[in-house]
C-alpha cells in the first residue's frame, strides 16, 4: 500500500543504527567535556532523528511533492508578486566567493562582494528615485520598521517629535503593526469611491502631530493613487513625511519612481520585485531608500566608495543603529543584483509594462463572471468580489479558492484587502504566458458555473490535494506544536 505523501515524521523514519553525516575523526587529543565546559556537559542527548541519507532524500522529496511553488504552476497571489525566478540567480548566490565569505573579513578581501552591493545600492536608488539606500533590512516589514524609525529619528533631531502616523484602510497588516512598534498612534485614512485615499478625510487628519503617512502605491486594490502629488504635497505642508510601502513596486518600474511622487522613504521587497524565490516564507530582503535629508539616519553599515575606487563599510553619521547583525541578507541581494544586471534599464521597465498589461487583460476577461468593485485601469493586480456567489448560492470566496486547487492553480490572495467583501486579489505577474492566463480565466468561470449548479461541490473542495480541508480550530484547542519522543510523552 502506498504511504501518504505527508504525515509520517522524519523522527519516525530510519532506525537507532541509522547514520548519515558523522563528525570528522578527532585529530587532536579528546577533552573531558564536563570539565572543559565547566560542569555543563549535556546528560541527555537531544532526540534528533536517526536516519540515513536515502531516508532524508526520500522524506523531503515526498514533502516537496505535497507543495506548490511557482515552478509547479500559476501562483497569482495578489500583493506577493510570485513571479518565475531565473535559475542563474540561484547559481550566483551559491558561488563560493559569495557563500563562503565571513562578515568580519578585512574589507580588502571582500571587494567583489562590496562592489556588487554598492552597485545594487546605486541601482535601487535610481529605480526608487531616492538617493540613499541601506541594504540591511531582512524583509519588507523589517524595511518598514527601518524606514519609520529613520523618519522618527529625523523628526527628533529637528526637535519636533510627533505622535501619529496615517495609514489607509486598504493597507497591508504589517503597516499598522510597524507603526505601533515605532511608538506611534495609528490613524486610519478611509478610501474614496474610486479606491484611492479620500482627500477630504486626509486633509481633516493632517496636523503638526502627524509624523508620516504610510502608503502603498499602487495600492492593495491594484490602483494607482491618481492624487499622489496632492497627497505628498499636503503631507509635506504640515511637516510630515511620506513613506511608501514598496510591496507593489513591480507595477511601476521605470515608469514612475516613488521619489518623483514626493515620497521620502521606501522599502523595496527585492525578493518580490527582483526575483528571489520566496523559500516557503523567506528569506527575503527589504532595502530602504530615502531622501538626502533622511540619509544620515539610516542604519549602518552601508557601502561607501573611496576616491581610489575601493569599497568599505561605513555607518551614517546620525544612524538609528543596527536593525540586525552584519550587512544584510547578502545571499538574497546577490540574486537581486544578478536579476537587475540581466534585464538592464530597458528590461526592468518591460517587467512593469507586461505585469500591468497581463493584469488588465485578465481583469477584462474575468469581469463577466466576477464583479470588479473598483473599475479602473489597474496596475499589476486587481481585486474581484465573490459577494454575488455568496448571496445567490451560499458559496464563499474560500470555497472558490479551494476549488481552484483541484484545477491545479494556486488561489489568489483572499479576504484582502479588508475593504472589499469576499475579496479575491489576483496578480498574474509578467512571467506568465497568455495561454496560462486564458486557462486560469476559463477555470474561474467554470467554477462560477459550478457554484450555480452544485454549491456543495465547492463547499467540499478540494478533492485532489494530499490533504483536504484541515481542522484549524482543533489545532488551537489541542495545540500540537512539536513532536516529542514516546518516553517524554509518558513522563
Amino acid at each position: 500500500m502506498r504511504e501518504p505523501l505527508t504525515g509520517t515524521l522524519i523522527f519516525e523514519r530510519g532506525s537507532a543504527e541509522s547514520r548519515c553525516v558523522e563528525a570528522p575523526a578527532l585529530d587532536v587529543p579528546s577533552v573531558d567535556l564536563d570539565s572543559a565546559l565547566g560542569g555543563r556537559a549535556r546528560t541527555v542527548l537531544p532526540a534528533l532523528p536517526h536516519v540515513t541519507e536515502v531516508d532524508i532524500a526520500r522524506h523531503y522529496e515526498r514533502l516537496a511533492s505535497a507543495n506548490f511553488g511557482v515552478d509547479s504552476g500559476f501562483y497569482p497571489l495578489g500583493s506577493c508578486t510570485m513571479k518565475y525566478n531565473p535559475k542563474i540567480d540561484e547559481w550566483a548566490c551559491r558561488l563560493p566567493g559569495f557563500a563562503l565569505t565571513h562578515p568580519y573579513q578585512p574589507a580588502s578581501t571582500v571587494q567583489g562582494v562590496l562592489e556588487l552591493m554598492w552597485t545594487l545600492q546605486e541601482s535601487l536608488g535610481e529605480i526608487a528615485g531616492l538617493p540613499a539606500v541601506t541594504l540591511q533590512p531582512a524583509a519588507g516589514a523589517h524595511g518598514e520598521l527601518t524606514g519609520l524609525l529613520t523618519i522618527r529619528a529625523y523628526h527628533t533631531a529637528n526637535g519636533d517629535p510627533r505622535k501619529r502616523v496615517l495609514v489607509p484602510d486598504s493597507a497591508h497588516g504589517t503597516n499598522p503593526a510597524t507603526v505601533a512598534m515605532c511608538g506611534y498612534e495609528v490613524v486610519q485614512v478611509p478610501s474614496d469611491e474610486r479606491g484611492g485615499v479620500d482627500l477630504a478625510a486626509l486633509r481633516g487628519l493632517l496636523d503638526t502631530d502627524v509624523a508620516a503617512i504610510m502608503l502603498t502605491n499602487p495600492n492593495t486594490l491594484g490602483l494607482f493613487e491618481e492624487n499622489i502629488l496632492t497627497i505628498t504635497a499636503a503631507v509635506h505642508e504640515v511637516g510630515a513625511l511620506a513613506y511608501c510601502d514598496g510591496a507593489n513596486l513591480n507595477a511601476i518600474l521605470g515608469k514612475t519612481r516613488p521619489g518623483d511622487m514626493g515620497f521620502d522613504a521606501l522599502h523595496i521587497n527585492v525578493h518580490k520585485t527582483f526575483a528571489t524565490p520566496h523559500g516557503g516564507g523567506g528569506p527575503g530582503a527589504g532595502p530602504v531608500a530615502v531622501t538626502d535629508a533622511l540619509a544620515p539616519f539610516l542604519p549602518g553599515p552601508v557601502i561607501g566608495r573611496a576616491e581610489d575606487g575601493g569599497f568599505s563599510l561605513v555607518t551614517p553619521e546620525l544612524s538609528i543603529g543596527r536593525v540586525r547583525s552584519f550587512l544584510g541578507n547578502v545571499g538574497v541581494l546577490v540574486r537581486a543584483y544578478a536579476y537587475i544586471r540581466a534585464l538592464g534599464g530597458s528590461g526592468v521597465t518591460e517587467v512593469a509594462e507586461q505585469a500591468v498589461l497581463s493584469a488588465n487583460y485578465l481583469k477584462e476577461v474575468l469581469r463577466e463572471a466576477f464583479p470588479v468593485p473598483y473599475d479602473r485601469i489597474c496596475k499589476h493586480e486587481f481585486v474581484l468580489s465573490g459577494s454575488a456567489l455568496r448571496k445567490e448560492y451560499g458559496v464563499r470566496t474560500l470555497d472558490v479558492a479551494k476549488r481552484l486547487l483541484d484545477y491545479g492553480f494556486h488561489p489568489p490572495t483572499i479576504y484582502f484587502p479588508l475593504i472589499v467583501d469576499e475579496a479575491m486579489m489576483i496578480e498574474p505577474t509578467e512571467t506568465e504566458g497568455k495561454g496560462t492566463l486564458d486557462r486560469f480565466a476559463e477555470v474561474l468561470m467554470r467554477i462560477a458555473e459550478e457554484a450555480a449548479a452544485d454549491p456543495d461541490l465547492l463547499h467540499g473542495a478540494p478533492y485532489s490535494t494530499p490533504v483536504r480541508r484541515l481542522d484549524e480550530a482543533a489545532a488551537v484547542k489541542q495545540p500540537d506544536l512539536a513532536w516529542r519522543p514516546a518516553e517524554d510523552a509518558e513522563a
Partner: protein
Amino acid sequence: MRFIPVTCEDQAHMLARVGVGSVDDLFADVPEDARLARPLALPEPMGEVELSAHLMSLAKANTDASDVVSFLGGGCYDHYVPAVVDAVISKPAFFTAYTPYQPEVSQGTLQAIYEYQSMICQLTGMEVANASMYDGATAFAEAALMACRVTKRQRVLVSQSVHPEWRQTLATYVEAGTVTVTEVAGADGLADVEALAAELADDVAAIMVASPTFYGTLDDLGALGELAHEAGALLVVGTNPILLGVMEPPATYGADIVVAEGQPLGSPMSYGGPGLGVFTCRQAHLRQMPGRVAGRTTDVDGKTGFVLTFSTREQHIRREKATSNICSNHALNALAAGVYLSAVGREGLRGIAEACVAKAHYLEAALVSTGRFERAFAAPFGYEFALQYRGDVAEMQRTLVARGFFAGLDLAAFSPDDAGLVLFAVTEKRTRAELDRFVGEVSAL
C-alpha cells in the same frame, strides 16, 4: 536577457481586448509630473553567458573560507554543510513556494516547519519554537519585547557580555517604544551576577544574557535564572545551537526564552546573511510569542495534516495590536536546519560539537604556550575564546592574512575596552595540521 514569455502577437491581442492602443495608455493614471520621462540609468542588459562570467569575476575578487584557514566567528561560523542540505533546499517545490496560506497545497513546507520546531525544542529543551526570525540579533530584540508583554513590565537588563550587534539591534528596536534597556557591564567575560542583582527592581521584565557569551565563555545560568525568577522577571538566553550538542540546554537552568543564531545549522556564511533567528519559549507564553508557528491537526477525512496556527497574534489579523510586525521570515534556512539536524542526528551533532570544543581547547593552549598570547578570561568556554595579544593586533593580522590565515577577530573594533583582545573560533572543519601551522606562524612573529 528577457524572462517574459508573452509574444508580440499575444501582446497585440491583449491590448485589443483591454481596449487600449498601447501599453503606455495603461499608465495614463500616473500624473504627468510624476512620470519618468527618460530610460532608467542602469547598466545595459546582459546575456546569460556574459552575466555568469561577470558574476564569477565578482565572486573571485573575494577571499573565501576555502582559500584561507579562518578562525573568524563572532556570530557567523565556518561549519561544514552536508551536501544533502543544499540538495533538499534547492527543490523548486520548497524554494519557489510562498508562505503556506493554503495548507492543502503547502503540506511540505508546513510539515518541515513542524519538524524544525520539534528539533529546536529537543535541542534547547524548550517547549515551543516558532517558524524562525530573521537572525539571532532580531530574535534577541523580539525576546525583550515579548518579556515585557509577558510580565507587563517595561525594562530589561542586558549583560554587556552579549554580542555587541545584538545589543545594538535591541537598542534600535526599543528606541521608539516604551521599553527601556539597562546595559550592565560584564565581569571576566561573563554576565556579572552581582551587578545584575544590584539593578534588579520590580520594573524589570527580564535578565538577558548569552551563553556562550560574545567572548565564547559559558555563564552560570542557574544563578541567573534564580535571580531573575525571584524578582518576577524572565531569563532570556542567547545560545549557540552547535554547542547544544554537548552542552546542557538553557532550559535546564530555567530559561524562559531561548534565542540563537541558527546559521551554523546548515546555512552558508554568505557574508553574514541570510541567517536564521531561532526563537523558543515556554508553552505558557505561547500567545505572546512573535512569528509563525505550525501545528499538527487532521483534515475532514481524518488524515494527519499541518496548518499555521495561533495566527490571531499576527499582523494580518491583529494589525496594530499584533505581537510583532514580522511577516516574511527565514523559512528556507529553517528547512536547512531541519535537514542538517536530521543528517547529523544526535550522535553526529555531539561528535561535531565535541570536535569543535577539543580543537578550540587544543589551539587555545598552544597559542598561550607560544608566549605571544595570554588568557583573557578564566571562565570555561565552548569553541570560541578570547586571548590577549602582546603586541599590535592589526599588524599581526595583516601579516597572517598574507600567510593564509584569518587570525581571529580584533575585538577593539567593537569596544575600546577590549583593545588587544582577539577572538578565535575553531570549527570541526579545522584540522590539526592547520592549527599546528598557525601556531608555528604565530611563534615566528
